[in-house]
């Protein structure tokens, strides 16, 4: 037994909490979770059944928590969890699960399978079984500060462009600001228009905000790969920067896992309550609209729909705000058949987009989104996650579809009301 494998086993043993034990005790192997998973529905391959992806962890639970499992291993009738099990399951656990949690919504006994896979990944990564792409992204996040290798210099260059385009000064390290804003690397590199949009909106709404030069990255590769230590380190940097600046709020950007990382796992990862409130950009925008500080004018008549980022909507609870905001600026907003907390994932969450070898499977799984879009016949899809956006654009390109993808914050900024004439 290798040392790494022992570490993996120890991690799985440590993570076998009351939730996991009750989930395995309750599972009746009904297989309904398969019908909720786009990797199964789009391939028809039973190995993509969500609960089957948990086989190594189930084996561990059985051998350590059940009578028959203990007896079987003792008598040599049952094979205990072996290193080969982890090696064999690596692709199922990382390539064919986006942690979207749709399966968790349909399980008749209520098992939160996404939570279980998130925990199983802890054991996998401790044993050394994780995709190279995700390992590298985590290494870059820890060493450079961003999974894509975005440095402060890169950010400053982007901000210069933002200042040029908007004519606004972007506050960096402004002591005592009310809000500290985080970005995902993708927004800095691929979608600086998001940064321009919030700069415009915040200026118009009179929001006191800043960016920290010490912690501007929201993406948390530790959460995706299943490394709590790395995830805690990354959250710790944000906490430390926010404490230094004395902000009251930290804004999570249009990025799904970033929101889960800081809003729902952040305090647990650092082992103490966060000394600030976390608010998602969509929550803040809707709050500003309700307070009358975000004034919008005009609307688009293009038929469009909203793609729900799983971690923001189903796993994050920001369900109605994007819809309310969209209705303000779009007259032809239509919903996909399965939307809101029952949406279908883009196929690239949970680190799958950082996992090169998963690309063919991801594109196959994208057929689910394609069917949804074909059914609606929309020209534009709005979303609120930079990772979803990249994945959706790739899928649309791959299947030669004629659909534009845009960010919700950008759409709102386009309809920002001008200053009132006196």
């Amino acid at each position, binding site marked *: 037994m290798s040392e790494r494998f022992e570490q993996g086993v120890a991690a799985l043993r440590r993570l076998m909490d009351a939730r996991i034990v*009750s989930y395995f005790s309750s599972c009746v192997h009904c297989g*309904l979770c398969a019908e909720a998973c786009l990797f199964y529905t789009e391939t028809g391959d039973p190995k993509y059944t969500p609960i089957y992806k948990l086989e190594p962890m189930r084996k561990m639970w059985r051998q350590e928590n059940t009578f028959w499992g203990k007896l079987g291993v003792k008598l040599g009738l049952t094979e205990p969890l072996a290193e080969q099990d982890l090696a064999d399951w690596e692709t199922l656990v990382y390539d064919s699960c986006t942690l979207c949690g749709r399966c968790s919504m349909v399980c*008749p006994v209520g098992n*939160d399978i996404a939570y279980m896979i998130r925990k199983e990944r802890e054991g996998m990564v401790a044993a050394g079984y994780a995709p190279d792409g995700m390992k590298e992204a985590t290494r870059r996040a820890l060493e450079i500060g961003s999974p894509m290798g975005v440095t402060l210099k890169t950010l400053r260059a982007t901000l210069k462009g933002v200042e040029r385009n908007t004519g606004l000064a972007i506050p960096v390290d402004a002591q005592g600001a009310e809000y500290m804003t985080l970005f995902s690397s993708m927004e800095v590199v691929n979608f600086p228009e998001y940064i321009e949009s919030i700069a415009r909106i915040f200026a118009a709404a009179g929001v006191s905000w800043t960016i920290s030069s010490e912690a501007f990255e929201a993406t948390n590769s530790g959460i995706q790969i299943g490394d709590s230590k790395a995830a805690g380190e990354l959250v710790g940097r944000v906490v430390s920067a926010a404490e230094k600046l004395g902000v009251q709020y930290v804004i999570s950007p249009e990025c799904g896992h970033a929101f889960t990382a800081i809003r729902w796992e952040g305090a647990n990862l650092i082992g103490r309550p966060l000394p600030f409130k976390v608010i998602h950009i969509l929550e803040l925008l809707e709050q500003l609209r309700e307070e009358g500080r975000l004034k919008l004018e005009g609307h688009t008549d293009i038929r469009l729909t909203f793609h729900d980022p799983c971690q923001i909507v189903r796993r994050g*609870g920001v*369900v109605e705000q994007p819809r309310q905001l969209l209705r303000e600026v779009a007259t032809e907003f239509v919903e996909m058949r399965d939307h809101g*907390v029952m949406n279908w994932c883009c196929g690239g969450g949970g680190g799958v987009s950082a996992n090169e070898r998963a690309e063919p499977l991801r594109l196959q799984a994208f057929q689910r989104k394609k069917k949804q879009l074909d059914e609606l016949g929309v020209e534009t899809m709005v979303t609120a996650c930079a990772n979803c956006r990249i994945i959706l654009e790739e899928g649309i390109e791959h299947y030669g579809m004629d659909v534009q993808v845009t960010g919700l914050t950008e759409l709102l900024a386009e309809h920002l009301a001008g200053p009132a004439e006196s």
Partner: protein
Amino acid sequence: MFLDFVEGPLWYAAAAVFLVGVAWRLAAIARAGLKEDLSVPRTAGAPGAVATVFRRFLPHREFMRPAAFQMVAGYAFHIGLFVLVLFAAPHVEFIEQRILGFGWTPAPHWVFLLAANFAFAGLLLLWLRRMLDPVLRRISTLDDHIGTGLTFVVMFTGCMALFESHDFLRALHMLFVDLLLIYFPFSRLMHAFTFILSRGFTGATMARKGVSA
């Protein structure tokens, strides 16, 4: 004599294994522990836990079609079994004389027949699906088949005993009931109790996030 044994010492032993075993399994879940969630909740977890325990009795509206077969067959089996166990005349009599000291009005014979038909049909349909569906074949274990088989034999011998009113058939039925009780805490049949916990845990977590699960 066989009847005396399966309704006497073996019954008491089986009931004891069942009660202690179930308590042990539930205690094992409690012993596993759960770290306090330090995130700031949107809504309280406890009401969400209770809501999800009840909400999951029906699939999500969007998931009604994929879940239709299992829902219909599952309810046919579970409701049928529930009626058989608690309202079949010999069971009510047994419960009154041997367990609680009081009974209630048993179901009329036609209700018993209807419940038995539903229970058998549901159980067989679910088992056929387990044998034929590629997903279920992939994930099913020996335990799933033993649990189904034992339940079927208990129901089958129970019906035989009722119709034939023969001591040997009654003893055979009791023997399988005793075996089922002994097997119960070591098997997936435990879901009859643990589903409340698993639904509750998920419901509480999701309610904290502001999501109705």
